[in-house]
């Protein structure tokens, strides 16, 4: 049934978009770092999973257990060593934005360069969990379902974590108003470092998951960075529910356009949808108007 196909495809696609964007929501929404090296980190994690899988025979699911904590630690260090000086010298949010764009632009090249030296510019992929589940005549690959599942669990889990726990409340406070957060004795820098590292762990997780069904090479990071930025901005900066909804919306748009209109227009329609939403809601779907 075409409509079921389109729905399920849209769901898995949208889940992937949301999954890819969740980490950036934290990094940009809370830590205020516009991380242009985001996609490169995703690709690096994909390569790590590939290497663990084809080199050591370690399943990507076990790989997650290794890659994710490592990414968390690396991102935490990154924030502490590289970004804190920028945060310290920034006079305003706008200044930090410019500085973080410049710094992570440099970082982008470094990460990509390291991947290039290790793996070259070639395409890589492997198959894992490529089996198929049949839902009402529409087959769905397990690995894509897994990515969708992770997106939902991570999105909702983080949403609950942020809204229902003390630590989460502190993070949200930092996102909304760092100065006021400081006044109520929240260690803003620690909170931002935590958010950045958490975002790094999430992007690594999505890199591992996505590597199970996409072909990747060292140059593809930018594609993911931009996709993630679109989803984050469309959902409203720092809003996890928005991120999930925006991702799914884009996924559905893409699969319905491909099925019923013209597959050549999928990306065009996605961007048009994004632009339209911003015109109607200048702060994204769930964004608050800033003062």
């Amino acid at each position, binding site marked *: 049934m075409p409509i079921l196909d389109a729905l399920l495809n849209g769901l898995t696609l949208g889940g992937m978009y949301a999954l890819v964007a969740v980490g950036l929501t934290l990094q940009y929404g809370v830590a205020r770092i516009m991380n242009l090296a985001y996609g490169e980190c995703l690709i690096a994690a994909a390569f790590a999973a590939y290497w663990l899988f084809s080199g050591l025979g370690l399943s990507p699911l076990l790989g997650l257990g290794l890659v994710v904590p490592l990414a968390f630690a690396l991102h935490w260090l990154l924030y502490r060593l*590289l970004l804190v000086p*920028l945060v310290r*010298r920034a006079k305003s949010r706008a200044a930090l934005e410019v500085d973080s764009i410049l710094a992570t632009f*440099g970082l*982008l*090249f470094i990460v990509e360069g390291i991947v290039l*030296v290790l793996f070259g510019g070639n395409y890589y992929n492997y198959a894992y969990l490529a089996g198929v589940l049949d839902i009402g005549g529409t087959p769905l690959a397990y690995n894509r379902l897994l990515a969708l599942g992770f997106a939902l669990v991570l999105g909702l889990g983080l949403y609950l974590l942020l809204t229902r726990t003390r630590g989460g409340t502190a993070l949200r406070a930092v996102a909304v108003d760092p100065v006021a957060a400081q006044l109520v004795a929240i260690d803003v820098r620690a909170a931002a470092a935590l958010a950045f590292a958490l975002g790094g762990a999430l992007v690594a997780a999505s890199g591992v998951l996505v590597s199970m069904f996409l072909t990747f090479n060292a140059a593809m990071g930018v594609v993911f960075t931009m996709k993630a930025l679109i989803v984050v*901005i469309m959902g409203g900066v720092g809003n996890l529910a928005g991120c999930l909804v925006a991702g799914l919306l884009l996924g559905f748009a893409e699969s319905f356009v491909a099925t019923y209109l013209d597959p050549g227009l999928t990306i*065009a329609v996605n*961007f048009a949808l994004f632009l339209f939403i911003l015109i109607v809601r200048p702060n994204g779907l769930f964004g608050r108007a800033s003062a």
Partner: protein
Amino acid sequence: MTLRQLLLLTAGVGLLAAAALTPLIGSGYAMSMAINLLMFTALATAWALFSGPTGYISLATVAFFGIGAYTVAVVGEALPWGLVLALAAGLGFLVALVVGLSTLRLRGVYFVIFTFGLAELIRQLVTWYEANHAGSVGRFVFLDISQAQIVWQLTAVTAVVFLLGALLQRSRLGLTLRMIGDDETVALHCGANTTAAKLLAFSLSAALMALVGAIVAPRWTYLDPTIAFNPVVSFQVLIMALLGGAGRLYGPLLGVIPLVLLFEYLSAHFPNHFSILLGVTFLAIVYLVPNGVAGLAERYLGRPRPSQPAAAAPAQPKEGTS
């Protein structure tokens, strides 16, 4: 005219003259470098005409650049060259006008990503049109335009960009743009029609970018949407302008020169470690030159306006200015 302005003017004219002379005395490679430097200088300075004072950071550079290039690909052989260039600039201006009407109420990062999305949307639409209605997605540009002519045309456009920038700074439009950058609400309540000012500046800057795209297009023989609308160009221009300092007319130039030379040096010497070294150097620059190259230069050459508290401390007003 102060001594400082005179110096800047002389330096500017000297640089442009040097660029214009490369075809006469330099090799094809020197011309190639001149084209690269001029292209990015014109683009980054045109970018800063609008984005510098207003603080609206645009990633749509390549949308307009690509529109210019595509104009050449489509009508380059059918029309006289002057008309092609005029058409390219006109199209860039018009598209920016339409886009600006819907976009310019977005602020901050929403504007940044919107402009990026816009460039991608245009690329996708051009691709779709070409694939379904033009028969092939690639286009060939065979025009009798030599490298030397490209250098001279770019020199002329760069001169125009700077001239326009200088005029803009002295004009009420320039003042309005700076007010918008500081506080748009205040600007509005001072009687400034900010929407018109933003639209005009955005479109002017877009027209110039389209012009640059049109001039450079014959150099590549072959164009497709991926080449013409390559988002990397937008990022490069943004980074160069920000690094140089987008607040001054000559700021972007100070970012373009070191970065183009750095790119070139690293590509020529470390083709296998280009990325890593570029990244490391870039980070070093960001950390060591916090206020942009223009800020660094001014620390040593003196500031145009006494805006440092130390410089203006007890400050009897200068009689000369009133």
